[in-house]
């Protein structure tokens, strides 16, 4: 019996029937208004800035000076806001982390991240280590590589399709860009080069998607005349769609707003924003209110699932470039996402069960950070990192060596990094296959040549 099966059995026996797993009343009530979530959906949460995932998932402290667990804490103490005394490292490990294990790997989950811990306990979290997208340590370039799902993407290259857009196309569905501006992750494939965003629905505010349509029952009102004129114009103009590479996209945008705006409005009128979700968008809610807005959008997108044809959704959270004061920045931001009563916990409480069962969350940054704190209580750009895959169908556990011993010999190097051993393509392709069978190889055409850490088998990422 693997780890996940064992956990499921335990759950069935009621052994792990704790806070995060009791279907909440709000979820039950809310779910009544949702359409059936009949297809699987990939939700991509991009952590822009290069998050130090190891900061929240560190190794156990070990008092042996030759151990990994000692050298990690020595090298990163300053980034954890700790002194250079081993006793402070021990204290941090004891007091600031949930201590968990998978097989022979013991590691911590920061104790502010209760939802993540609960999901881990439920066997829903896969931690794929030593993952790599780009290696230039250039934010913009590496973000593009991850979004496009193209390891060969060069800094001066024009955008082509993103892997979310390609997955949506392969699944014959749509991709929801729920960020403030669509990212290239959402761009769809084009037979003529570049990208085609016909399947992308950009919704930075699901509750404000309609075009003004004039004053009801007053056809001669000034505002009615101009809005009617434009509506008629765009409807006529769309009949010539396909002739103009530059301007057609605006006709498409107008079409999507007409096609989706009013039905979305009508649906969401019946589904008020749950107060707990609304609170995440207000001052005093999350550290990053924009993330709260995106989660609200995601909630609403599931509420309009049948209207939207959603198979992929894109959200993001920036601010991980922690060159200074890392601990004070990364911890509250991670809590926004993974804390109890915060981001994903609140979202999960308000989505129907079939949405949770049909959703996989992929959480990655563009690169990891160096193994050693810099002189400013932070960490500088690195290479490899951990990617999280979370879902009810995920075979939770640690994939790839979480704390390679060889790193210890490089701690004194000028720029020691986690060496990237597994191309993100493998992780993402596995998720694509789960969302829509046999799409991974279509979405990631270079999969055969993408590196994979020795001994790692991602074919079992999903149950």
């Amino acid at each position: 019996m693997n780890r996940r099966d064992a956990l499921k059995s335990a759950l069935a026996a009621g052994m792990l029937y704790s806070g995060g797993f009791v279907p909440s009343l709000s979820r039950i009530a809310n779910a009544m208004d949702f359409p059936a979530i009949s297809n699987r959906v990939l939700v991509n949460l991009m952590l822009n800035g290069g998050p130090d995932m190891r900061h929240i998932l560190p190794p156990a402290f070990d008092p042996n000076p030759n151990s990994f667990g000692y050298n990690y804490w020595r090298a990163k103490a300053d980034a954890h806001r700790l002194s250079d005394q081993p006793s402070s490292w021990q204290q941090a490990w004891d007091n600031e982390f949930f201590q968990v294990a998978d097989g022979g790997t013991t590691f911590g989950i920061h104790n502010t991240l209760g939802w993540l811990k609960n999901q881990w306990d439920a066997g829903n979290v896969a931690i794929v280590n030593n993952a790599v997208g780009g290696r230039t340590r250039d934010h913009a370039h590496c973000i593009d590589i991850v979004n496009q799902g193209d390891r060969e993407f060069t800094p001066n290259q024009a955008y082509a399709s993103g892997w979310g857009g390609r997955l949506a196309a392969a699944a014959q569905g749509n991709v929801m860009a729920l960020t403030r501006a669509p990212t290239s992750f959402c761009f769809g494939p084009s037979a003529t080069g570049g990208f085609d965003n016909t399947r992308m629905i950009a919704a930075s505010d699901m509750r404000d998607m309609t075009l003004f349509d004039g004053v009801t029952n007053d056809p001669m009102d000034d505002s009615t005349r101009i809005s009617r004129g434009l509506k008629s114009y765009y409807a006529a103009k769309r009949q010539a769609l396909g002739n103009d590479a530059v301007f057609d996209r605006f006709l498409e945008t107008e079409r999507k707003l007409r096609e989706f705006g009013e039905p979305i409005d009508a649906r969401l009128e019946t589904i008020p924003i749950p107060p707990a979700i609304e609170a995440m968008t207000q001052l005093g809610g999350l550290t990053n209110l924009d993330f709260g807005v995106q989660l609200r959008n995601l909630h609403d997108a599931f509420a309009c699932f049948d209207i939207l044809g959603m198979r992929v959704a894109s959200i993001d959270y920036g601010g991980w470039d922690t060159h200074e004061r890392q601990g004070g920045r990364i911890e509250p931001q991670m809590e926004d996402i993974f804390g109890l009563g915060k981001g994903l916990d609140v979202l999960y409480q308000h989505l129907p069960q079939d949405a949770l069962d049909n959703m996989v969350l992929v959480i990655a940054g563009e690169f990891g950070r160096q193994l050693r704190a810099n002189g400013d209580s932070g960490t500088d750009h690195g290479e490899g990192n951990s990617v999280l895959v979370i879902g009810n169908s995920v075979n939770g556990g640690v994939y790839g060596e979480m704390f390679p011993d060889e790193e210890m010999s490089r701690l004194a190097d000028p720029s020691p990094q986690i060496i990237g051993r597994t191309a993100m393509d493998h992780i993402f392709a596995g998720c694509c296959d789960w969302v829509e069978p046999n799409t991974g190889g279509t979405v990631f055409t270079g999969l055969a040549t993408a590196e994979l850490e020795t001994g790692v088998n991602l074919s079992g990422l999903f149950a």
Partner: protein
Amino acid sequence: MCDLSPIRWFHILVLATFLSACGGGSSGSSVPPPPPTPPGGGGGPVVILSGFNTVSDAAWDETAVRKVLQVFAYGGQATDAQITSWANMPAWDAIQQMLTFEEHNPLLSPVRISNSDGLDDRSATLRGLVDFWSSDNPSNTIDPSLRALYVLAPVAWYKAAMSRGLNPFRHRIGLFETNYHMSVNMTIGVTSDQVIAYYDGITESLESGLPYQQVLANAALSAAVARQYGHFTNQWIDGVCYCNEDFAREYHQLFFGILGEYDTTYHETVAIKNTAAALTDIRLQFDTTQMDFVDFVTFGTEYHAPGPLDILNSSITGVNADERIQQLSNVAINQQESLDNLPVLFIEGLADDNMTDAKRTRIREAWNDMPQKDLLRFLRAYAVSDLFHSADRFKFFTSIDRYFVMTNGVTHSNVEANSELYTPFDGLQDEGVIAFSPRYNVFGAQTSLDAAESTSVFRTNFNRVTREHYRYRIPVSNNFGPSFTKDWSSVMSASDTGGYRVDGVTEYLWQRFVADGLKNLGTLERAHIYAFLAYDADLVYAVNRSEILSQGLDPDDLSLYDFDRVITQADLETDPALQSLLDELAAMTLDLNDTNDSLRQQANVKVGSAVNFIVATPYMFAQEGL
């Protein structure tokens, strides 16, 4: 009639919220007199940079001039006569008048009647403008209740980009440098005063004609950048660099375009490390009276790394960060990666969303053709080149691009520019854009592709010209700050429009706002605009009305109208009745110069309606090269 007060209060609320969020700011110290401005660029021999072939005289026409103004100066505020004059000059001569870095460019941004603020004769650094617009100077026409907000860099910048008597090209490039290329961010703690000093430092360096690497070096050594990246805490103590590498990396990557591909291991393990050391002991004082950091840095030696530093395979010497970075910048500007990437960054960022390898080659060739890197000469040469004026080029407008092209097109004087009626602030806010608060932090503000792919941007613009149609239609404005009477005849001549014929006015407005030589002013567009200019009504209404009249029915009986009707281009080009209607509408005239106030105002309202329509078409969101 619309309710005027909500927009006003919303504007105030938004500005006040932003002021609060940014921690305030002060108007700062008195302004030193500006340095004497050098003459405006003309007179020298025509220089064509290798790679940039100047367009022929035939191709250099009014449309070409307007395209340059749209992309490089938010449309500018030049008179139509001046645009004609530039179009009739050799392109290189014209561009030297059009694009200058001086504080004032009287040809690009001439003062007009009713301009009592005298901006053309004031210090027009951002600091100078902040001090004037936030003051009680009797010439200041900013609403007194809003003046305090003009200590904020974004508020002052918005006004600078749309005011006559200044230089919108200077502010276009100033924004690009400080919000895209070398971005700093007020939302993460850079103060308004630091931003203003940073902005002025860059624009004054450009104005004084410094080699471009010195412009970059001065920017790199600013208080704003020190605060943005936090390296002012970098110290060298007993042989150890207590440093972060953030700006050490981005100095190379963002400022100069050096990613380290020349030798990735060396760049990571030597060049960046030593650049961090070169940045040690930059001192940024905290002013306890202002409770914030000051807007200048000093350079210490006590905690500065000693001895030569190996950076970019050169020995970089100096006793402090200032000397090191100035010297390093002279090396960095000639690195092959910088030579390859920096000029492309300018052109992609400013003017071309359809970059190709062939274009990159020519752009690099032009940059390489300048032993001394001169951004102004580079941009001028590009702006008159066949790369810019090419069918292979297009540029999507960012929200700021679009709003300021629209605003400069619709305002006729600084009195109008100072009216809250035309403020772009709330619209930009709705589109998620605030100057100096870049969406991607140091990686820059909203991109043109962001704007083009955003439903929110499209919807906000659409709803602004429909739900808030009055902005461009109000003929007499008394409730949005300075009062004015809209008078399109002050910029649009009767002779150029066939005596304000509908078709003539249509073409005038299309060219004023879209500037495509009427390329995209098709039958469908004409029909809709004609209807607004003729009847202040939409085409659907006009066609219905015409048909109802022809049937001898009552045109006031709205139950007879089919308001959901879609009239296609094919309908307009094949249906004789519709063709006849269009001919009739085209020949009607507007009473823009009538002596009767009411008729004249009605005519101005119709023009406003047409403007509302034009700026909501797809053609207001992008520009094609030809």
